[in-house]
């Protein structure tokens, strides 16, 4: 493989997150290296989504430290995170249902738009040039994800699997350096899962995007990730390469329920 896993770019240290008396995350540390596919797994309610929300600044942990590209900070800020190249998809699809696939993807370019509201309203001069440029980028994403046939279809009319793909597309339209995927394959059939896996691997391979993903399907996780961190009741119980994690007795007990 030409893709080389690089330095640690995101280091989470002793993160604890509480909602009132509920401890969502307790003293969790792990890191993410550049260009790797990093999976977070765990049973329901283990704190996986909370972890992702901490990473892109939706939640602010009460304790702990985040080191992002060498910069120490207590928490992330959503705007800063987006500007720093984070993009994400959601567990329950968060697209604009009434808008076309194309328009949804265009919203992913939001941060890269430079011209002002008035220029856009008049579609004049730089705004027009800019939009054409962004449209070209979006078309590349459409080509990449093979969704040409639904380009102009309102998202709400699409089957679930395709909506998931469109959501990935919107994240990709932002040309992220770190992609956070919250259960990208939940509720999909085998064929859709295979497609999605291939897209995730392709994104990682072709653009060198670092990917942090939450997934329930163990087969998928073990197949595509470079390293896996395992959470259970807000605590980290395992961390390492798929094979290592698979054979960790604590993980087997917690996640798979029985010891074989």
């Amino acid at each position, binding site marked *: 493989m*030409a893709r080389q896993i690089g330095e640690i770019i995101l280091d989470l240290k002793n993160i604890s997150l509480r909602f009132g008396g509920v401890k969502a995350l307790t003293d969790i540390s792990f890191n993410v290296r550049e260009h790797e596919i990093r999976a977070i797994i765990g049973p329901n309610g283990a704190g996986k989504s909370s972890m992702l929300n901490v990473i892109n600044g939706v939640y602010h942990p009460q304790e702990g430290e985040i080191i992002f590209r060498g910069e120490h900070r207590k928490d992330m800020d959503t705007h800063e995170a987006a500007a720093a190249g984070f993009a994400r998809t959601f567990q329950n699809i968060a697209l604009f249902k009434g808008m076309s696939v194309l328009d949804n993807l265009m919203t992913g370019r939001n941060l890269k738009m430079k011209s002002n509201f008035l220029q856009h309203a008049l579609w004049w001069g730089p705004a027009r040039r800019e939009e054409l440029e962004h449209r070209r980028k979006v078309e590349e994403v459409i080509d990449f994800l093979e969704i*040409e046939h639904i*380009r102009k279809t309102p998202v709400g009319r699409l089957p679930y699997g395709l909506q998931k793909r469109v959501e990935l597309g919107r994240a990709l339209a932002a040309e992220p350096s770190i992609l956070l995927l919250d259960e990208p394959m939940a509720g999909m059939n085998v*064929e859709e899962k295979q497609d999605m896996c291939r897209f995730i691997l392709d994104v990682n391979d072709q653009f060198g995007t670092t990917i942090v993903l939450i997934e329930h399907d163990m087969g998928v996780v073990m197949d595509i990730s470079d390293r896996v961190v395992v959470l259970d009741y807000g605590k980290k119980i395992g961390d390492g390469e798929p094979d290592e994690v698979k054979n960790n007795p604590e993980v087997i007990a917690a996640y798979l329920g029985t010891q074989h």
Partner: protein
Amino acid sequence: MTVAHTDAARAASDDRDTFPHLLLAHARMRGDRPAVREKDLGIWQSWTWAEAAREVRGMACGLAELGFKRGDRLAIIGDNRPRLYWAMCAAQMLGGIPVPMYQDAVAQEMTFVLQDAGIHVAIVEDQEQVDKLLEVMEQCPELQHIIYDDPRGMRHYSQPFLHGLDEVIAAGCIHDANHDDFLDQEIAQGRPHDTAIMLYTSGTTGKPKGVCQTHHALISAARGGCSFDGLNGDDEVLSYLPMAWVGDNLFSYAQALVAGFTVNCPESGDTVMTDMREIGPTFYFAPPRVFENMLTQVMIRMEDAGTIKRRMFHYFMDVAKRCGSDILDGKPVGTQDRLLYALGNLLVFGPLKNVLGMSRIRVAYTAGAAIGPDLFRFYRSIGINLKQLYGQTETCAYVCLQPDRQIKFDSVGLPAPGVEIKIADNGEILVKGPMLLKEYYQRPDATAESINADGYFMTGDAGFLDAEGHLKIIDRAKDVGKLTHGAMFAPNYIENKLKFFSFVKEAVAFGHDRDMVCAFINIDMGAVGNWAERRSIAYAGYTDLACKPEVYQLIQECVEQVNAELAADAMVADTQIHRFLVLHKELDPDDDELTRTRKVRRGFIAEKYAVLIDALYGGKASQFIETEVKFEDGRKGKVAADLVIRDVKTFPVTQGRAA
């Protein structure tokens, strides 16, 4: 002197009747006209004839650099892409023979053709096709080079025998610039009677055979077709049917190079409908099932439309049914009907044609299977000049064409210009003309078997010429059988009647050497699913839906209607269907039940489902069956069901035997 001079001139010009010469002539004389368009990144890109010729030259020289030479076969695998069409011409420039292959075939299916044709070089569309070839590379030791058009995903492939088409063309352009007369000499050596292309038969019976067609045969067929329908350089065609199929080769390659019209390549297989709407082709070809799908879509959407729209649609469709075909055929029609039709055109037919992308169509053809009279009438009645043609791979898909204004629903038209037709004693259709195949590749036995001593090609179809000389096809000559009491049994004829119902996707009729006719039915998931939905019938999937008693009732009504129609025709009245069952799975080319062109493989099905046939003829009321199915990704699974068998009402013959 003058005479001799003209003859010499003609001989010289005939000598240049090859596809590379045609391409160069277009580039020279009308170089700035669009030759090819392709939708890429959401925008239609076009190439002029001059640009196309330049690309083809580069590709030809690039192929020569890889060692491709006169007489070599070049495999071409992929969707309809401009550069894959150009690859055909590039091979022909070097005196090579392009062999387009079905792009949706699985790797193992490809080995036969790769081995049989002795392929050294293959040009393929993308990573998917490269992977397939790599998979069978060991079985095809002669395969030395694989060239891919789309570099996506190919970065990590380091095999030295893989080449990007861009690099091949770039190398070729340098070669062309350094050796200016190399390619022109190669082109000049090409002769009209050289093999221009090898197309493999679908293999409905036994192993596929490579049909060698010459430049002369294809160009004659293309010229005949173009003059017949007045196709010219202003026409537009949408190329979306498999390149390995003779029809696509005739319409998108041979005729395009003869008439000089523009070939449009869709963005992907899934976007054909949208692309068609954007391009608005003037010349269109589709097998009946495409027309059928479109009509089904329209009907489903009309059922869901508001009351006013639905009423309007049905009212004007009645008007169209009454007088639409006659107006198209230039027959006399009353003033009131004309006015109503014009209004209908404004309100319904026009917008409908626009939605289907058919507003600009001058000529549309269908072939490959029988088209239902209702379906055929529908398109003609809304003003689309849909016609049928008849031909096969061995005859460049050029035997019979329906002339404008002489359309009969149940015939395939008059012999095309330059074609001679004869009916053999056993009813088999024999044809002769310039478009006949040169030979089957390395199969002199098969060639001798199919062309008789008088030079007629034996089509294997049974048919007859009617009083006006129009050809009517009944069935495959070898499929026509007999029931035990002696009645002629034409399974296709019966199956087609069943398939004309939108609920029936596929049907297989049995009856040869039996005492009655029985049938397997495949329901159409889209149409029946929608029908079930509107009746609030819940179902869990194909198998479940197929086994519903309500669906059986629906299909039974269809079968009974077919029986009523059969009863009306003395020739086939004895072959009414007595018993039927609805299959639990869709017949699928991946399970070898259909050919890649979706023709039923009767023998294979009879063997595979022998228990079902025994149950049909054994008088059982139901039969359990478990079948293995292959999924697209190569995995296997099982479908099981307890199939109900129904008896159907048959009708007494309603028409005298004399008729």
